[in-house]
Every structure is written in structure tokens, then in C-alpha cells.
């Protein structure tokens, strides 16, 4: 009878008369949505997004170009040319699959391993390099450590180091976009480790209570530096948390670009149309090996500050690299369609490597930003104290400039 229903304001549910705890794994875990098998064959034709050839080629070329750029910049860090780098090996599918599904004006908040999103949006190699080198061409004026890209014109918010802080910020931005009645979505990327931060909890919760047009995109690559997921959480990954916050959630095969594409496109469409948040957990693996133009195998560590041979076996790595790599799978799809062959592959490897090396050599030659940029942008307007200090530096350099390596800096 109606009077017998619970009346608590905090939850709407029926009564239960048997004592029973809910298992953390309600089923055998939330299933992983995929479109292709590991050999790049579409399993159900209805799920193939039927992207035109140029689009699919763009996906493939972006992934492989990213891979090549990673290889060269990683090496340059090992050689002491740049201070730090993070590769994206193995996760290229998550970047381009999702980037291809977005509108150009959708606002992207990344964590630090989403360079492929920016590359897909046309950010030139020259500027990736400029940021890593902190040279005078860097629109960021050499302020940040490498891979902390940002591009207002391409709606990619400057990367910030502390983990997960971008999550509530993305929600706030989505709220602002909702207020402006713009048909834009916000896409917020983070790893499964960052999802443990308090900011993530608050961000998910608020996105639902504020009813924002946001897609949360979690890259679950199995590791947070050396911490495997078995030590990061005991629940069923990140997707299972979504319903707890009132978020529509899905788990996808992150190494399947079409699965990533389909899920992101639909989530984005509905987020904007219905002003509600979505959560996508893309399962992938932080791979060891770069795919292109490898002379000898290099290790895909968390970053250049990590040596992952300390915490994972070569067998594990070999499995992922050979059996389930996003680039290989898309390559097979292209092959099945007759859109790509060995000769094109060879030519592309050569030309993409050449492009990257040219940009790299150019970046090495560029001067650093001028010293007076030390003082700007602390505030929008330069305060008198900083202006005085800038003038002091200028006078000092005018008198003693010969003792400084000014030739390396732009005037």
C-alpha cells in the first residue's frame, strides 16, 4: 500500500525484507563495447560508423604521426635536449576516436596524455616541439614543462599538472556553456588513477546536480605509474561509479577507434541536447613499443621519469603490443577495405618521420623567449613592482649583457 513505501527524502526505493549486501561486481563487471575484433574485422555491420575513407585515413595518419613524434621527442629527452616527456604509446585510439567525434568548438580539458586530440584538431608539429623546447615560437612563452600544451583557438585548455583538478573545472566550464546556450559540449579526459582524487568525486557529483553538457572520458590503461588497477580500486573500474553519481555510463574498448568514436559521438550529442553528463571508460593499455620506424624497442613508461621494467613483465607488454594495438587494428580495417597497402605504409612512414625530424631540427635551432617575458602575465596588467624589476633587469643586461648567453634568447 502507498503508506508502506519509504518516505525518506534521500533515496527513492522499495523496502526489502531480506538482509542482502550488493556485490561490488553486480554482473561480471560492466561489459566492454567494441565494434571491431582484434584483427580489425567489424563484428556487427550496424555498429560500423561508416566513416568516409578520408576520415578514416585521417584517424590512421594522426595516430601514426603521434606515435612517430612520441618516439623522437622521447629520445630527445633521453639525450638531454628537453627536460621531460610523456609518450602516448598504445592509447592513440582513445585520442583520435574521441576527437573525431567532437565538434571543433567543443571545449577539451585534458590531463596530460591526450596530445592526439590536439594533433587531430590540426595543432602543428612545430608548436608541439616549440612547447617541449620552450623556445620563442611557443605560444605558451616557455612557461610550462613539456607536454603541457594549450591552444585557445582549438579549444584545448592548457594542461595543468596536479591530477584531476581539471575535472571540477570542466564541470564549471560546462555550466558556463549551458548558461550561454551554446551548442557545445565539454570533454574532460583523465586516467583511472586520477579518478581516485577527491576532485574527481566532486566533479562527477556536481556535473549531475548542475545538469551540465559534459562528457567525462576516462583512459583506463591499467597503471598509474607503477600502481596497477588492482591497487588503485576494488570496485568495477570507473564506469561502475557513474551510476552512483547519476551519470549515464559506458565502458568501451579504447583500442577500437570506432567503438570510441561511436560512444563519444552519441554521448556528446545527448549531453548537449539533454544537458546531462556522460561517463565513458575507455579500456586500453599503456604500451611499451612505438609502432613506427623503430630501430630498437623502447619502453613506454609513465613518463621519462619512470622505468616500467621495474613493475611489469616483458610477456605482458609483448601481448598488448602484438595482439591488441589500436594502430594495428585500424591498419587491418584499412587493409580489409582496400584503402591502404604496404607501399603507402612505407611511403607514409618515411614522409611522416621526415616531417617530424624537420620540425624537431627547426625547434632545436629556435632561440628561447626573450628574458623580459619573465614578468608578464602574472596578472592581466603588469603591477608597478614587476615593471620596476623588469626595467632593472633590462638596465642590468644593457651593462653586463656580455656575461650572459643572450645569443640563445630572442631579443
Amino acid at each position: 500500500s502507498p503508506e508502506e513505501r519509504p518516505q525518506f527524502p534521500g533515496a527513492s526505493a522499495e523496502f526489502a525484507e531480506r538482509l542482502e549486501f550488493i556485490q561490488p561486481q553486480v554482473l561480471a563487471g560492466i561489459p566492454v563495447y567494441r565494434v571491431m575484433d582484434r584483427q580489425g574485422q567489424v563484428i556487427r555491420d550496424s555498429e560500423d560508423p561508416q566513416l568516409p575513407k578520408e576520415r578514416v585515413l585521417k584517424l590512421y595518419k594522426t595516430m601514426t604521426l603521434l606515435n612517430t613524434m612520441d618516439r623522437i621527442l622521447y629520445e630527445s629527452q633521453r639525450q638531454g635536449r628537453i627536460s621531460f616527456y610523456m609518450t602516448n604509446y598504445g592509447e592513440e585510439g582513445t585520442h583520435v576516436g574521441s576527437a573525431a567525434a567532437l565538434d571543433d568548438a567543443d571545449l577539451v580539458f585534458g590531463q596530460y596524455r591526450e596530445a592526439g586530440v590536439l594533433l587531430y584538431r590540426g595543432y602543428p608539429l612545430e608548436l608541439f616541439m616549440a612547447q617541449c623546447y620552450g623556445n620563442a615560437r611557443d605560444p605558451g612563452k616557455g612557461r610550462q614543462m613539456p607536454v603541457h600544451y594549450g591552444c585557445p583557438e582549438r579549444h584545448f585548455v592548457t594542461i595543468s599538472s596536479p591530477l584531476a583538478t581539471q575535472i571540477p573545472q570542466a564541470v564549471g566550464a560546462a555550466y558556463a556553456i549551458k548558461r550561454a546556450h551554446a551548442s557545445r559540449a565539454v570533454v574532460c579526459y583523465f586516467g583511472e588513477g586520477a579518478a581516485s582524487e577527491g576532485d574527481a568525486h566532486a566533479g562527477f557529483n556536481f556535473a549531475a546536480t548542475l545538469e551540465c553538457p559534459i562528457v567525462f572520458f576516462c583512459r583506463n590503461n591499467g597503471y598509474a605509474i607503477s600502481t596497477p588497477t588492482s591497487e588503485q580500486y576494488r570496485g568495477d573500474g570507473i564506469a561502475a561509479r557513474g551510476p552512483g553519481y547519476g551519470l549515464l555510463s559506458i565502458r568501451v574498448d579504447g583500442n577500437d577507434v570506432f567503438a570510441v568514436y561511436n560512444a563519444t559521438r552519441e554521448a556528446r550529442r545527448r549531453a548537449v541536447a539533454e544537458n546531462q553528463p556522460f561517463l565513458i571508460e575507455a579500456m586500453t593499455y599503456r604500451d611499451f613499443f612505438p609502432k613506427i620506424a623503430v630501430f630498437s624497442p623502447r619502453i613506454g613508461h609513465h613518463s621519462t621519469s619512470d622505468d616500467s621494467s621495474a613493475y611489469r613483465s616483458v610477456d605482458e607488454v609483448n601481448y598488448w603490443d602484438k595482439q591488441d594495438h589500436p594502430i594495428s587494428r585500424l591498419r587491418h580495417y584499412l587493409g580489409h577495405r582496400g584503402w591502404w597497402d604496404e607501399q603507402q605504409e612505407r611511403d607514409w612512414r618515411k614522409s611522416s618521420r621526415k616531417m617530424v625530424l624537420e620540425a624537431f631540427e627547426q625547434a632545436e635551432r629556435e632561440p628561447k623567449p626573450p628574458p623580459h617575458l619573465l614578468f608578464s602575465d602574472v596578472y592581466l596588467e603588469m603591477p608597478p613592482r614587476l615593471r620596476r624589476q623588469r626595467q632593472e633587469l633590462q638596465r642590468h643586461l644593457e651593462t653586463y649583457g656580455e656575461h650572459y648567453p643572450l645569443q640563445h634568447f630572442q631579443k
Partner: protein
Amino acid sequence: RSGSPLSPPAAVSQVTVRDALNQALDEELERDERVFLLGEEVAQYDGAYKISRGLWKKYGDKRVIDTPISEMGFAGIAVGAAMAGLRPVCEFMTFNFSMQAIDQVINSAAKTCYMSAGSIPVPIVFRGPNGASAGVAAQHSQCFAAWYGHCPGLKVVSPWSSEDAKGLLKASIRDDNPVVVLESELLYGVPFEMSEQAQSKDFVIPIGKAKIEKQGTHVTLVAHSRPVGHCLEAAAVLSKEGVECEVINLRTIRPMDIETVEASVVKTNHLVTVEGGWPQFGVGAEICARIMEGPAFNYLDAPAVRVTGADVPMPYAKILEDNSIPQVKDIVFAVKKTLNI
């Protein structure tokens, strides 16, 4: 009732700091639809300290937002909204709780303009009560002026009077940089005279300018927030003994108007700083260091003296609490010590 959000401004009248802040919020919400207020209890409850009384009723859910209990959450939301073009006013129920959001305030709000080479401004205001209250003990009584004043990229203001509160809050909301507004719970209910001009809708006080509340010739007293009132009381006591104090209300912690202090010290030759916060690395320490580094050093006839809160977490027992913050007698004592009388 004069000063409440829905009645017109009068000629010189007594307005509490609470009502002055309320006026400021009301006027800025009306002036710019990008401005919005968020925090715990700010909407339906009219604010934990009633600073936002009547605003949710007037402006609705879009402009005044009650948030779940997560300082890092709603501070992060506010930062993101500011990055995307809104102008949030983010209330911390007290600044003690801002420590749970401090990464968003410092690493994000303060540093983003610089780190993004000017392409991402963060026009946000963080406001709330700061420093000592009454009988709320250690975790509710800390002063954060030195913590936030330490960081480039932030502006930090600390109003004392109703005029300060209204003018500085309005200026902060209109400023395109992140601003921390350190209010004082003990001052919320205190009435101050406000001129007709101060009650007008465009009354702003420039950030970065101190105010000389009382002129004097024998000693310079510098303070911010509630201790400004204590300094004026001490000045009245000392005046009867023939000592004329010049009392400077800093108004802004960062950027600090050291020039006003310098000019005063050049005149009086003696300096006493007064603050509610702890002594180490405090506002007074910074003032003394800057005076030493500048022209006023040569005009000091005695070392500068700092009067500060006791170097302990704030105790609960009233007698201990009273003696843990600077009282009028402490300021009088410091003045006499520095003047050697």
C-alpha cells in the same frame, strides 16, 4: 531598514559590514549577468552568515547556487566557469575550509594566467570570513592573509569598515584577476558610517591602496581588518597621554601599498604593525622587511615592532582566546616600548 538589499540608499547612515557586503553583491549581480555566487548555504539559507540574504529570491538558481559539501569541488567548478567566461564569486564558509580547495586557488586560479601566457584569465573572487571569531577554536580561527598574500598571481584584500567591505568587494568582482577577499565574522554585525557616495552603485575602492584612518606624528600603526579598530582605540588612549598615532588601514594585502607606510614612517620615525595572524612569516614580517629595504629605513629611530596573534592554535577557553589575539593594551604597550616611554 537602511542597507538592506531592497531599500534605496540614504544619506550618511549607519550600515553594518554584512549589509555593505550584501549591497555590493546585489549591485554587481545586477550590473553584470556573468557574475554569480556559489558556495554552501548561500542560496536558500541566505548564507551561513546571511551575507547573501535576499539574493537567491531576487536572482534565482542561475545566479546564486547552493553547492554540495566539497570545497575542492565547488572551487574547481568556479575556476572552470571563470576560465569559460563567467565571473564567479566563490564563498568559503570560512577561509579555514579553503585549505581543502587550496590547490584550485593557488595552482589553478593564481597561476593559470601566467602558465597559459595570458590566454586564460581567471576572473574569480574567493570570499568569506577569515581569522579569529569567538569561541570556535583552532580549526575555525586561522588567519590566511600571509598564506594567500604569499602567492604571485593572486590579489588579496582585507576590509575593515563597511566602506572598505563594499568598495573592495565590488572592485574585486570587477577585477579580471583572481582576488581573495578576507572578511571578518566579528565585523559582520558592526555598524559603520557610510557616506551617500559610498552607498552608490558605482562606489569602488582601488585595490592596492592603503588608507590613513587617523593622522599622527609620533608613531605609525599599520593593521588590516579588525585590528584597525583596535589601533584606533589604542590611539585614543595614547592621545590622552600626548602620543599621536598615525593609523594606517592596509585594505589590500597584495599588492601591498608600502609607499603609504614608508611616507608615514619618514614622518613619525616609529613603526608598529598589528595583525591577528601568527607572527612567523606574517603580514607584519613582510612590512618590516620592505621598510628595511626602502628609503624609510634611514628614518627609523627604533626597530619596528610587530604585534601579532599568539603563536599557538587558537584555544577555546574564553580567557585564553582573548589573550591569544592582540588587544588594545598590547598595542599601547608596543607603542610605549618603541617610543621608550
